């Protein structure tokens, strides 16, 4: 091993001698054997026969070759097997070069014998040229913390925390309220089993309660997220509880003596407007809490908490009453602390859309008996607890309940999206209401009922019940309704019959929408994560939904968009799964990362500006350095560098340039244009490959080179290609908005546009450089594009640089 210069073994794999029928392999062997540094040059008809790979192994152990070029057609599985077999004799997996004849249109066998032979020789020479440049590479390991910070202890955060703890990871759960549970803890029932969510929270807490891996930070919020994947430093600020969580035994004696009574969920439901001012719920929810009370919304941690702002001056009755001396009412300042974590998970959840903004239609906050659906949940849970509070403010005979769907959702003036859970929530509430008050008469005003999946069955069940009326329309509460009255009159046009309908109700429930939580928006701001148009966290929705643009920060649950509880738990689980790789104590980085050549670098900082994942930082000498734990290895820095100083390992500019150089001698006639196509491996290259697989008539004129992202193509490579007389250069990337690396395709389009302008001044047709968006299924379109392109290149005539 390690002989200098490198010695190459060239193996042409030809199962069933199909290749020999197309190309004169003996001529290929004769030619290639003469190329410098090619030590072995053989055709193997059956690579999977026992002795075949053994012979190759022996050639390596005899020190005759140290790298291999494989010619033929290979699946990923076959490549891996061959790599593993040769790894046994010490060949680094990155010292194999795969020359895929299928991808280069040769295996199709279309074209004259001469061009087929010529193209085969060209692509093999390209592979050999690259093989000479290959370097052995090994993955690198970076140290990483095994803790994780979960922001938000709602149902998603709790489930994520439980998954981490089951894997033995240390979890810091940061919650802004005094207890866990989030919005789900406020519900009366949840889908799809219609059980009590308190029970569901208790179940997940089973894992958390007894674990010494969990650190729960209540009344806390993150202030800063510094560092990067594997080694984040998260600063959190915690407000004082005034109760020692270790001493407090939750006996509740303090609450009994507390003189202050507060509405039960003052801070839980609506951030705006101040809830007690809304007249509606005041008369309905009778439960209250004291200024010292158990954690809300769910009593975990079991320790009590003091709302110091509500305490009367000088009162310290609770302090005196506490048998364990856990309470300390002396003035305390918020505490700040730094947590080191390998990953951060944002499960910041949602807030209800402020229904007071719908006043023009629905009179929320103006009429005593107009409430939101979260308040309805509270009301239902209050009644199901057996309290003697009447369901309706009107005394005696009231039993008519109305529900208005899409209150705030699917309305361009409010939330333009569908909040996805409200239809099912209404169905659920009616179902519970009917069990508690069988005489209730319900009317649902809807635009479209959207009960997805199995929820449809519940909807159908209710629809067939005679005393639930579904009206398609958007009602208005009559302005003439007296604000203090107990009955409401609604007018609505039934959009099916076109007739106006007037309905009298005792209680009106607005199925309000979900908007991103304020805490989520704040977290995005402090951690630099992008939000989508609706202020939910943005990810690549299909391919890595829970991953954010900042590697190591993940998002789950309703922080990503409206979801019901079970979807939210699923999302949290996926996010936890993705976070685990950062919590292993070390992070393994594939060796195909970018390397900056400091001898060439001019410190222009373009890579710093344009890296889609913000990986680059300047070192103390002013040179950019990629942060490998953040890097997704897309190669956009390699593409952007104006002085070609950045290369991705295993796909260096040099490795690409030597391949392009081979194309100087055309394998076709002078008039036939040669096209060099750089295709994005995510979809354009796959589309091209499937065009071959389908046996479509892909022209011989094209040579394919795969790149991790279209944005990795440097203008210098295009200049190389044009200057040696290649007639056309094609850059195939994703459609706008579909790029896995945010906007690699747009970056390359901008650059090749600049190059095209330069070509114009050089009196070269700018159309010789073309970029193209190709979706993965567009094999046929790719062939059409190629054919059209060849026609237009022929019309232009051969490249002025062509020899």
């Amino acid at each position, binding site marked *: 091993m390690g002989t200098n210069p490198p010695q190459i073994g060239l193996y042409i794999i030809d199962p069933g001698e199909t290749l020999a029928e197309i190309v004169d392999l003996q001529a290929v062997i004769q030619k290639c054997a003469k190329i410098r540094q090619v030590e072995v040059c053989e055709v193997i008809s059956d690579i999977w026969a026992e002795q075949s790979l053994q012979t190759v192994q022996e050639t390596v152990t005899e020190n005759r070759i140290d790298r291999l070029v494989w010619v033929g057609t290979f699946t990923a599985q076959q490549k891996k097997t061959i790599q593993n077999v040769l790894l046994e004799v010490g060949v680094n997996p990155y010292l194999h070069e795969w020359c895929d004849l299928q991808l280069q249109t040769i295996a199709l066998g279309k074209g004259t014998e001469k061009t087929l032979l010529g193209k085969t020789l060209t692509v093999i020479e390209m592979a050999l040229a690259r093989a000479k440049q290959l370097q052995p590479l090994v993955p690198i390991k970076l140290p990483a913390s095994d803790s994780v910070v979960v922001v938000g202890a709602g149902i998603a955060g709790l489930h994520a925390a439980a998954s981490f703890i089951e894997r033995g990871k240390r979890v810091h759960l940061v919650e802004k309220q005094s207890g866990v549970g989030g919005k789900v803890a406020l519900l009366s029932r949840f889908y799809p089993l219609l059980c009590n969510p308190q029970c569901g929270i208790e179940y997940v807490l089973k894992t958390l309660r007894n674990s010494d891996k969990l650190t729960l930070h209540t009344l806390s919020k993150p202030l800063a997220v510094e560092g990067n994947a594997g080694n984040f430093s998260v600063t959190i600020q915690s407000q004082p509880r005034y109760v020692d969580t270790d001493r407090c035994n939750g006996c509740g004696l303090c609450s009994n003596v507390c003189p202050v009574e507060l509405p039960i969920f003052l801070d839980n439901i609506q951030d705006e407007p101040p809830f007690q001012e809304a007249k509606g719920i005041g008369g309905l929810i009778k439960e209250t809490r004291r200024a010292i009370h158990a954690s809300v919304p769910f009593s975990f941690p079991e320790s009590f908490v003091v709302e110091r702002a509500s305490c009367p001056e000088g009162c310290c009755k609770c302090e005196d009453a506490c048998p364990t001396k856990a309470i300390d009412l002396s003035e305390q300042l918020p505490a700040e602390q730094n947590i080191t974590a390998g990953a951060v998970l944002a499960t910041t959840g949602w807030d209800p859309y402020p229904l007071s903004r719908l006043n023009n239609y629905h009179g929320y906050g103006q009429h005593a008996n107009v409430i939101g659906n979260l308040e309805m949940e509270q009301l239902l849970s209050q009644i199901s607890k057996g309290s003697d509070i009447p369901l309706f403010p009107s005394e005696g005979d009231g039993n008519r309940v109305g529900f208005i769907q899409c209150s705030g959702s699917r309305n361009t003036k409010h939330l333009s999206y569908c909040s996805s859970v409200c239809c099912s929530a209404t169905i659920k509430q009616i179902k519970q209401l009917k069990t508690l008050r069988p005489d209730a008469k319900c009317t649902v005003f809807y635009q479209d009922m959207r009960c997805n999946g199995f929820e449809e069955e519940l909807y159908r069940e209710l629809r067939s019940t005679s005393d639930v009326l579904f009206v398609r329309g958007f009602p208005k509460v009559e302005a003439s309704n007296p604000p203090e009255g107990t009955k409401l009159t609604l007018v609505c046009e039934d959009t099916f019959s076109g007739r106006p309908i007037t309905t009298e109700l005792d209680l009106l429930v607005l199925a309000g929408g979900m908007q991103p939580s304020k805490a989520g928006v704040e977290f995005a701001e402090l951690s630099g994560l992008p939000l989508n148009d609706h202020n939910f966290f943005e990810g690549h929705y299909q391919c890595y939904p829970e991953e954010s643009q900042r590697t190591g920060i993940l998002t789950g649950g309703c922080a990503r968009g409206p979801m019901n509880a079970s979807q939210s738990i699923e999302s949290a689980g996926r996010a936890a799964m993705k976070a685990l790789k950062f919590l292993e104590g070390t992070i393994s980085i594939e060796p195909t990362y970018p390397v900056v050549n400091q001898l*060439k670098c*001019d*410190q*222009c*900082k*373009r890579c710093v*500006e344009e890296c889609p994942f913000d990986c680059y930082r300047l070192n103390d000498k002013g040179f950019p350095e990629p942060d490998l734990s953040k890097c997704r290895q897309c190669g956009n820095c390699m593409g*952007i560098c*104006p*002085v*070609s100083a950045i290369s991705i390992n295993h796909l260096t*500019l*040099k490795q*690409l*340039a030597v391949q392009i150089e081979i194309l100087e001698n055309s394998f076709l006639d002078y008039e036939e244009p040669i096209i060099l196509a750089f295709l994005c491996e995510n979809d354009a290259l796959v589309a091209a490959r499937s065009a071959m697989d389908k046996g479509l008539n892909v022209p011989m004129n094209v040579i394919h080179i795969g790149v991790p992202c279209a944005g990795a193509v*440097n*203008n*210098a*490579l295009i*200049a*190389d290609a*044009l*200057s*040696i007389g290649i007639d056309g250069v094609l850059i195939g990337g994703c459609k706008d908005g579909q790029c896995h690396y945010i906007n690699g395709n747009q970056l390359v389009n901008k*650059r090749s546009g*600049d*190059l095209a*302008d*330069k070509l114009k*001044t*050089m*009196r*070269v047709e700018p159309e010789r450089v073309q970029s193209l968006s190709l979706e993965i299924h567009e094999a046929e379109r790719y062939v059409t594009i190629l054919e059209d392109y060849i026609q237009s290149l022929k019309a232009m005539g051969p490249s*002025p*640089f062509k020899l």
Partner: protein
Amino acid sequence: MPPRVDLTKCDGCKAQDEPLCEQVCPGNLMTLNENSQAMCRESSDCWDCMSCTKVYPVGAIETRVPYQIGYHGAKLIPMVGTNSITWTSIDINDKVERFRCKTRND
């Protein structure tokens, strides 16, 4: 003849403190104007070395050939590859010549 900057294209290297053209200019003539775009501060001192033209990432700088060599309107345009520069020269009679030289950029 001094470099001419296409102000519709120049992005001032995204307003970094020192743009690429400023770094490469051997006479330290290039700088940023008040709009953070490239400009030559003393055109009579330019040697026509074309370093700025070659390095320019978005192709916004053009060098006019000195009139002593090619008369007014003649152009010389470099296109920089990984290890070669391809020159296109266009004289005042629109005669186009192209030549490619290897560089030792590896």
